[in-house]
């Protein structure tokens, strides 16, 4: 695993780029580890409390450990009418977790999201930001099996 200090340092020339650094950290760790947040605050010249405020503001950033794959289920109106609720229930059942939880093997974390801008093929889920289209309860096990 890359060192969080190097990851943060690679973003330091972007003025105000702490969110970029958070993205880069999440690329590696899937969340923002505490010591990395402290380091990022230092590098970007803001307080830890401020950095924490930023990290907790955005729904795609997390300061809590998450699984290897983050499944985000879109809930916005176009997906809602396309059956998002049913799909969500199917995912919860399939993985035996509720929204916000991580599977016991640390593989999947399930989150809700608002519109991901792929409304040509609803309902949509994303796995680690990759959109998957027209997902139904029937195809779900097959879709998830592609993620090891």
């Amino acid at each position, binding site marked *: 695993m890359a060192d969080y200090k190097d990851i943060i340092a690679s973003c330091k020339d972007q003025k105000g780029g702490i*969110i970029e650094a*958070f993205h880069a950290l999440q690329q590696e760790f899937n969340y923002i580890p505490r010591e990395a947040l402290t380091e990022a605050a230092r590098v970007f010249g803001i307080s830890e409390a401020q950095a924490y405020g930023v990290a907790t*503001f955005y729904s795609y950033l997390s300061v809590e450990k998450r699984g290897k794959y983050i499944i985000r289920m879109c*809930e*916005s*109106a*176009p997906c809602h009418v396309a059956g998002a609720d049913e799909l969500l229930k199917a995912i919860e059942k399939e993985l035996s977790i509720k929204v916000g939880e991580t599977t016991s093997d640390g593989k999947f974390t399930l989150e809700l999201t608002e*519109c991901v801008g792929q409304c040509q093929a609803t309902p949509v889920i*994303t796995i680690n930001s990759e959109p998957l289209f027209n997902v139904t309860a029937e195809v779900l096990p097959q879709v998830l099996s592609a993620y090891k």
Partner: protein
Amino acid sequence: MAEEMRVLLEYADKINPEIADEYVKIGGYVGLEKARKMDPNDLIQEVRSSGLRGRGGAGFNAGMKWSFVPKNAEIKYVVCNLDEGEPGTYKDRIICEKNAQALLEGMAICGAAIDSNQGYIYCRGEYPFIVKLLKNAIKSAKELGALGDFNIEVRMGAGAYVCGEETALIESIEGHRGEPRFKPPFPGVAGLWGVPTVVNNVETFACLPSILTNGAAWFAGIGAAKYPGTKVLTLTGDTNNPTYFEVPTDYILRDVIYKLGGGVKGGKKLKAVQVGGTSGAFIPESNLDTPIDFDSMGAIGAALGSGAVFVMDETRDIVDIVSRISKFFEHESCGKCNPCREGTFRCREIMEKINSGKATQKDIDNILLLSRVMKKAALCGLGQAAPIPIESTIKHFADEYARKIV
């Protein structure tokens, strides 16, 4: 007239948007070259007289917006809003995927007009692949020398609808919580890092190359007189053809749904259509013959907004959908101002109560009162717009509510 008119998307899928050279071969970067030779004042005037109005939501004349930027400021920024978060909207993504170079060229034209050599594109966190595409496109354009000394940096959001609001977007680029600022000062005077900043939407910038190439009069002659040009729409919901279209702005809503969209899915009847994203008003069938331009939409209490067109068939439960929409706003409120932070929360509570059949007329009265206060007292557009779906459905679909209350 029921045809698409493709200006921005004319060469969709015919060129690789990441390769500047391909864009040049179809006449790209001619507009920028022309702009660079013009006096900045004349350039601003040219854009102004084209009648181009912001495609982001507020519909402000782009040239006019630029003219507010103080000439004497040493540093100025051009910022592109690619945070399209309105549910049902993905037209900026399409424009980037099909014609990213036009966006870059448009930003550089704006740079020439306001004397700025630094641009930022703020791309929503849901589109990491667009960030990659844009970075490649910028690299290619820089290597070709097409952008001259104009530089563009791409920054990625991280899941916050409110960052589509221009001052929240600026805060986010600065590395802060994406909370909107109060205005004035407007970004044109004090924006990114406190210096004058023009913030326009992807689609607005992408219109500029053709305006410069073909002339302001050409553009002004397309579509609605007061909101000229074309508009990229995305059709979602109960439609037979859930995809994007580019149409002139005098195109009417009925044609979007029935001609381009091929009608309501399953041959059902239409109950409602919501235009402009999830903050838009619900439009009943009776208003379908309205042109989509900004002012015509405004006249029926709706808004063109992002150009999302969400179709709901006769079987849809309006209260359930609005209840879901109220959850969206609760989730996306930044929490800075009281009317929005508390209001969106209570709106969701009341909508869920109505939806579950436990509410009374008193609850409807309470939510209408709350909506009125949010609209007039919230700090930014999010809190002001959040009650619109509620109000418009209580107005146009009262029977749907009446059915659910005790």
